[in-house]
């Protein structure tokens, strides 16, 4: 009887424990309030999770997008709550590990294409809200994208352990009590979820952000994410807070510039949907980031050029038979003047931007200029569509170079240059894999050194023995 009672009590305890485990497992689903889910959705937008984890036109967060990196393509995973193909089985702690520490539920390490070094700053509350959103409000997609296959040695995910030791600072955001609430909010968003530095900071040889040059400008595939420090020449020091907020909201600011490529995407997916308060907070913070100056730059990218034309050199002159010999003014007349107008002044209402006083033609790095000519500007938000057509199909490498150099001379920074070879490389996707070979070479060098050392030691021993 006693035994039975004890056994019964034991069962009860076990059952209770089991039940509570179940309850815990289901807790997020059951307990997440609508408010928390809503906040999680906003945070997911601020984090622009969709940029990588959704294929354009595909199911939200279903993964599958191939993200080009210098070491090969990394395939974004399915982060829907699908139990078979997504993160449906993740506990809050596992979700947290992935988000802030770059570790999957199975213990494997993520590649830092996932900006967990930035997300590490996200607060516990916000992690919980994100978890609640993904688990409750995202539609499960039961199809897993193909796995990432990087070349050796990067296919060894354990190598990220060492990388994380060097570059992952596992601490959430700490308020700076000396600064305003707005600044703190901006710093939290910019350095955390909005992960500005992922693109705008240069990376070192190990592909980690160079903290000493925070937001000093970096390469993003074939695009260049410019310096957005507070420097008045090289950065955004000359932009007002309102101008920055407008840019994030609309993808453009009159008299300054317009977002294109990955930044247009960030505006469409993320910034456009954020509150005015948050955009102003980000602007406030960005304008406080320590200034970094590129000494080659002598005035702000938006401060070059004036209206001008060369119509007197082309009217009444037939196009040359050899398309590669078409002049800059002729290419401008044929391809650009329709919208940007004869003297580069854009439309009277500013709807079509002027080319002078436009960051597009003011930078020393001309990759973005080439990319915009090749691929145009496309927005997926509102107003949707192609705001500048792509000329990839129409213009040869030489023509893009001729046109680019003409635009820089006429309306922009005359010291900047476009080369036909550069256009060809960017047209092909840029894809230099030098890093793979550099790392392999470095590893080989280490092996050779070790072998040489061993041989040397063996030889010395022999010499010692022989003597």
């Amino acid at each position, binding site marked *: 009887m006693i035994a039975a009672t004890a056994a019964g009590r034991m069962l009860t305890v076990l059952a209770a424990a089991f039940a509570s485990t179940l309850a815990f497992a289901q807790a997020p689903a059951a307990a997440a309030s609508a408010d928390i889910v809503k906040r999680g959705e906003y945070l997911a937008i601020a984090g622009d999770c969709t940029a990588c984890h959704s294929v354009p036109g595909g199911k939200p967060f279903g993964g599958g997008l191939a993200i080009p990196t210098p070491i090969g393509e990394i395939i974004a995973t399915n982060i829907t709550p699908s139990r078979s193909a997504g993160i449906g089985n993740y506990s809050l702690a596992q979700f947290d590990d992935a988000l802030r520490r770059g570790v999957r539920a199975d213990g494997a390490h993520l590649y830092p294409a996932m900006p967990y070094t930035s997300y590490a700053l996200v607060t516990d509350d916000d992690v919980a809200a994100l978890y609640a959103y993904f688990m409750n409000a995202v539609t499960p997609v039961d199809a897993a994208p193909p796995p990432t296959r990087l070349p050796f040695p990067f296919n060894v995910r354990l190598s990220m352990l060492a990388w994380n030791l060097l570059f992952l600072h596992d601490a959430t955001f700490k308020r700076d009590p000396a600064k305003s609430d707005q600044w703190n909010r901006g710093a939290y968003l910019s350095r955390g979820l909005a992960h500005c530095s992922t693109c705008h900071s240069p990376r070192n040889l190990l592909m980690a952000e160079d903290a000493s040059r925070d937001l000093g400008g970096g390469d993003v595939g074939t695009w260049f994410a410019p310096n957005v420090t507070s420097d008045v020449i090289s950065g955004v020091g000359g932009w007002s807070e309102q101008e920055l907020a407008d840019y994030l909201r609309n993808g453009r600011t009159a008299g300054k510039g317009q977002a294109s490529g990955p930044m247009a995407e960030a505006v469409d997916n993320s910034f456009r949907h954020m509150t005015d308060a948050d955009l102003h907070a980000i602007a406030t913070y960005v304008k406080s980031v320590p200034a970094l100056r590129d000494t080659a730059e002598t005035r702000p990218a938006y401060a070059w050029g004036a209206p001008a034309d060369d119509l007197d050199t082309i009217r009444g002159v037939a196009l040359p038979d050899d398309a590669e010999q078409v002049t800059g003014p002729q290419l401008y007349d*044929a391809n650009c003047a329709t919208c940007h107008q004869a003297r580069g002044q854009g439309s009277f209402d500013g709807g079509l931007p002027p080319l002078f006083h436009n960051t597009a033609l003011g930078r020393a790095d001309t990759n973005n200029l080439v990319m915009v000519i090749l691929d145009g500007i*496309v927005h997926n938000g509102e107003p*949707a569509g192609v705001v500048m057509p*792509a000329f990839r199909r129409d213009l040869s490498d030489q023509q893009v170079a001729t046109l680019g150099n003409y635009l820089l001379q006429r309306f922009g920074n005359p010291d900047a240059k476009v080369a036909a070879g550069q256009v060809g490389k960017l047209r092909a996707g840029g894809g230099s894999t030098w890093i793979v070979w550099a790392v392999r070479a470095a590893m080989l060098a280490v092996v050779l050194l070790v072998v040489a050392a061993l041989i040397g030691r063996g030889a010395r021993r022999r010499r010692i023995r022989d003597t």
Partner: protein
Amino acid sequence: MANDTSADFVVVGSGIIGSLTARKLALAGASVIILEAGPRVTRGELVARFRNSPRRSDWMSPYPPKAWAPHPVYQPADNGYLVQAGPYPYPAEYIRQVGGTTWHWAAHAWRNVPNDFRIHSLYGVGVDWPISYDDLEPYYQEAEEIMGVSGAPDTGSPRNKPFPMEPVAEPWAMRRVRERLAGTFPVVTNTTARNSRGYDGRPACCGNNSCQPICPIDAQYHGGLAADAAEAAGAKLVANANVYKLEHDAAGRVVAALYYDPDKTAHRVTGKTFIVAANGIESPRLLLLSASDKFPHGLANSSDMVGRNLMDHPSTSLTFDADEDLWLGRGPQSPSSINTMRDGAFRAEHAPYRLDFTNISRVDGATRALIADGVYGVELERRLRHSAARELNVKNVLEVLPRPEHRITLSDQKDAMGIPKPEAHYSIDDYTRKGHERSKDDFIRIAALMGGSNLRFSKDGDFANNQHICGTLSMGNDPATSVCDGWGRTHDHENLFLASTGILPTSGTCNSTENGVALALRTVQHMLAEQAGAAKPR
């Protein structure tokens, strides 16, 4: 003969119809070669030539023909390529280059109205089509989704699915016309392949008002885009390949297309199926040029119908000064029209028509007219401003009935390649003239509603041409009276198909392009189904 190549499908002509035919075949996995007589062009060079032309209203000026692929041009002088046999001139314009004539068009992409397919049965005029509106409806939709078409909700052509996009914003002048004609004439947005938003990688129309001769930003669909799409789908496009003969075997199957390159070196391309998509003039010309001992009157011509029943849409018009400033020239060139006279019992008596308002800037034409009148100085500025602001023009688009004596034949004259030129035999019959007379009443009422003054009718007896070439390859069920069947297959050659506005057996009241594209897409569906051995589509 040099450079023999081969494909499952050989398409002659890279215009919007040939290219979309090739694209659909290539997307289905077929091997396809497109042979185009003219050169490749880029939009940029066309825009540059347009901007550099002193003849801004000559829409052919950016498209000078190549010697090895001539096409008709009339300014500054007629180049004599399309020989006129009369009695009424048929000065057709078309473009022989990759992408074809839709590089410049107003992008009108209308469907017929259902009764257009049965005018013989219903009204005792013309002929019935071998297919019905319902047969073609899904292919209209397919064409519209490719081209990005928008339009008014009800212009008499029922649809099963919505347009793929909303219409382009209504220009001010068209809004005022619509408002002032309301209650008497419903003025609606035209059905056009012009983007009102980003579509398929192309931007929205921003109102350059140069749809003809060239949309500078590809906001309107054109054959150059179709040719690109065909190549992207895997079709092989050979430019500067002027096909001058189709060869057949003893059984009457076509076995090869022979073409000249610009040096007049002959090449031979073999294939299993041949599709002639070289427009309503060059296609019959090629069939006639391909005469042999076995087919002495040309290919597909046992009925003697190849080249006959030439039709287009003649137009007469009224220009007047409205009593308010309208400032034509903002937005697309041809945005709005009246569609209430496209069908009705009157078709037994006279031609039906659409009424089209032009929105082309008046500045170029008014300037030239005033200078020609010797007006100068302050008076020139005052009157130019008045004309540019107030002038309005409305034209009819009249149906033409098929008549065998209206035809394209081979001329005795030869082009620079030594190939006989096409020759046009044409006139305007009473059916069309009566339609013109009837529409004058509408013109007068429209002018009155707009407070019009200074009414200027187009010269009596003058009919402007609209370059909607059709009828010359007519489809029909009876091999004795038509060139091809309802699938575009020639009655005489099992593996020779026609994809062209030439196969339209009647002209209706709408621009022929979308009809031609939809019929071609249906033809491809049929070919693929036949090959798969599956049931034929409707």
